[in-house]
């Protein structure tokens, strides 16, 4: 687990109080609206997200930056690499 501090995010997704599988569905939707290179911050109190999100990033070709422990939740950071956020390339035209 990679711990980070003071990461500047371009957008935040608050998933506190929500559980599996929302932490694996909503990041993709959010990233689809972001530009390549931008950073998404995910707030969650669901422990399962600590393993699930890095592995979801691997599968979907997104960069997992790391995690910061806050007072009442975890903050997980993802940098958008490419595509629609779910690993699929965007199709234009």
């Amino acid at each position, binding site marked *: 687990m990679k711990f980070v501090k003071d990461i500047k995010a371009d957008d935040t997704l608050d998933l506190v*109080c929500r559980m599996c599988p929302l932490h694996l*569905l909503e990041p993709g939707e959010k990233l689809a609206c972001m530009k390549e290179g931008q950073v998404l911050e995910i707030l969650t109190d669901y422990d399962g997200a600590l393993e699930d999100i890095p592995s979801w990033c691997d599968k979907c070709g997104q960069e997992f930056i790391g995690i910061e422990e806050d007072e009442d939740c975890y903050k997980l950071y993802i940098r958008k690499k490419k595509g629609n956020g779910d690993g699929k390339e965007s199709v234009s035209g």
Partner: protein
Amino acid sequence: MERKVYLDNAAATPVRKEVIEEMMPYFDREFGNPSTVYDLGSRVKAVIDEQRAKVAELIGARPEEIIFTSGGTEANNLAVKGIAFAHRKKGNHIIVSAIEHHSVLNSARFFERLDYEVTFLQADEYGLVDPNRLKELIRPETILVSITHASNEIGTIEPLAEIAEVCKENNVFFHTDAVATVGNVPVNVKELGVDLLSLSGIPLRAPKGTGALYFRKGLRLMPLMHGGIQESGRRGGTENVPGIVGLGKAAELAKAEIPAKVSHVKALRDKLVNGVLEKIEAVKYTGHPENRLSGHASFCVQAIEGEALVFMLSSHGIYANTGSACASKALKTSPVLVAIGVPAELAQGSIVFTLDINNTEEDIDYVLEKLPPVVDRLRAMSPLWGKAKPQAA
């Protein structure tokens, strides 16, 4: 054949024909589970989101701020419990008014069994909550204030915008139970300044067992029903698709019709109130005389039991309500009437008439013809009548 006059529209309403027609395909042809990935389900999911937009439009919200529920009670439970559980680290104090529906009062009382404190804010003799008194009761550990938009029992419309201002200044979440108002008066969540608002399908003439909770975007809310991905993980369980379609259609139709409904039922209500107060002695008109729901008339009739009155009126084809399950089923004094200072003995004689667009002037004439002799008959049997005559008027 004897006339039927239905004046209990706060309890139940007949579902509109257009609403039933809209719902029908979702019982058989469009039966797919909205969570499935194939077309049978994804089509239905898209329809649910269309209904979400219609309900949001009715109250000036965004579609993503609407959670469909099984009615007003679930919406109230989700608001009170959802906020109290999600924000426990911030504080453990909840304020609710003493004239709330049981779904708010009992949700708050549930937290007294945990490590929370609850303050019950009193209302004045007209049922109005004082925003200044609320201000005095808010503490650093207060997380939620829940005040009804209007009580179905006494009809008084609360000064929500002022209350919302107090909550905002003190960084406290503000929920309102608007089950009695959405569909009966124009409601806009942004103008009211509320963080959460409960509504029911009943006043909209949608099916029973439908409703929704508005929650301001960005608000953390602990789900009551843990399950799948429905309602963005905030309310698990396969959706009541026909009910949601019915609620959406009813909301869409209501948006344009509310102003006409308000003026129609207000004229009838005024006729009913004036007639009752003129024809029957020792009757108290409860709630606020002006700031109240336009189709709502509530009285306490001296020296009789409201339940007996409701029962006898029904034998004449007139359907009304005592206004409170405490009075009608548990033979206990209504907490709402006690909270506004109605003496317990007088509160027993509570009767509530709630009107809808289908009611006519002839309906009111019929009630004014049948009600006085029914009251006389009950009083003739009452050991209290005679002793108490001067108190109510």
